[in-house]
């Protein structure tokens, strides 16, 4: 499993499955979300931006957790694939965080009356974006990629305290941002007809992340192993 060559081949076979199931759930989620789900009793049609906003916000935290766990494994066991997982995830995570912030802002202006407020939820999510950008910057600043991977593993683990803060910010403090509508336990604060497309989009975004992180990790594996025999053979095979 740890062998880069084995990973490269298996990942190559998995990507199409992730990509196809991503597209199918995306189409289903968008169709249900935009055409089938009823309008909201208060917000009318404009609540539908949550079908992008909420899954993007979930992903921003989910990807960070993946990176922190991969960082822990990298530091303790020094496994190359988990090192590659961290840096391959960082820019995807940063994009989802940015998407969550932008869509939230677009919704906030008509609903709250403000593009941005410095409440605990919005501020901690912005901090998460800076953490992602910091990880990307730190990785590219260090020449030796194994040293760089160790540095970003530590940074990812330092930043992990922000994740519970983001999640519980709406409960610990008074915030303008509403509390969670969708919870693992207890009564849902969202009607089922609106919840189904939201969950579909949530699954879709995870599959997208799966496909993209595998693509990026394969490229990273090739670059790191560019001087090994298996990569040379692979390239020569492609040339013929």
């Amino acid at each position, binding site marked *: 499993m740890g062998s880069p060559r084995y990973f490269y081949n298996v990942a190559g076979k998995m990507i199409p499955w992730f990509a196809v199931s991503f597209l199918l759930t995306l189409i289903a989620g968008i169709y249900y979300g935009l055409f089938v789900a*009823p*309008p*909201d*009793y*208060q*917000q009318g049609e404009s*609540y539908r931006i*949550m079908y992008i906003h909420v899954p993007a916000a979930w992903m921003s935290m989910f990807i960070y957790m993946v990176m922190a766990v991969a960082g*822990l494994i990298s*530091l*303790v*066991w020094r496994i190359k694939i988990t090192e590659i997982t961290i840096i391959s995830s960082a820019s995807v995570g940063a994009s989802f965080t940015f998407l969550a912030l932008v869509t939230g802002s677009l919704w906030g202006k*008509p*609903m*709250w*009356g*403000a593009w941005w*407020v*410095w*409440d*605990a939820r919005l501020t901690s999510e912005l901090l998460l974006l800076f953490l992602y950008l910091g990880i990307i910057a730190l990785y590219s600043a260090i020449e030796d990629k194994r040293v760089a991977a160790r540095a970003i593993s*530590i940074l990812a*683990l*330092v930043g*992990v*305290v922000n994740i519970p*803060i983001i999640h519980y910010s709406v409960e*610990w*403090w*008074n*915030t*303008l941002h*509403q*509390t*969670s*509508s969708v919870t693992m336990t207890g009564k849902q*604060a*969202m*009607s089922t*007809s*609106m919840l189904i497309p939201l969950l579909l989009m949530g699954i879709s975004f995870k599959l997208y992340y799966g496909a993209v992180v595998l693509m990026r990790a394969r490229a990273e594996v090739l670059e790191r192993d560019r001087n090994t025999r298996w990569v040379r053979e692979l390239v020569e095979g492609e040339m013929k």
Partner: protein
Amino acid sequence: MNPIRKKRLYLIGMMVAGIGVAAWLALNAFDENLMFFFSPSEIAEGKAPTGHPFRVGGLVSNNSVKRKPDGLTTAFDVTDNAETVTVEYTGILPDLFREGQGIVALGQLNESGIFVASEVLAKHDENYMPPEVADSLKTAHDEGVNEMQQQVSAQ
């Protein structure tokens, strides 16, 4: 697990726990500043800052919204179902502003205890439902209230 890995795991555990404690202490120290708004009860207890603007948040009381003759100023009561603060605001209110809606207003208390706001934001809650469901919930609620009133008057 070999001793080197065990040691690394231990060190990382200590690091994350240390940062967690530091973050917890910092957040506790800044608790008041992290509050985006104060509830009317907290203002009544004197927890809200005096001398500089702060935010008050709560529900707009039913039948409390009054337009001033100038047509721009609105006065309304904000409540957390325990205490009430009267808010005065000159300007355009957000779309979601209505009686029973959660709002957050930025401003200062004047001498007569009226909160003069310079900004009013609507606070949306976590409930999402289609209009029909909201209607039937409201009907059921009203029927329940009527029934209780009838029972009370019959006694």
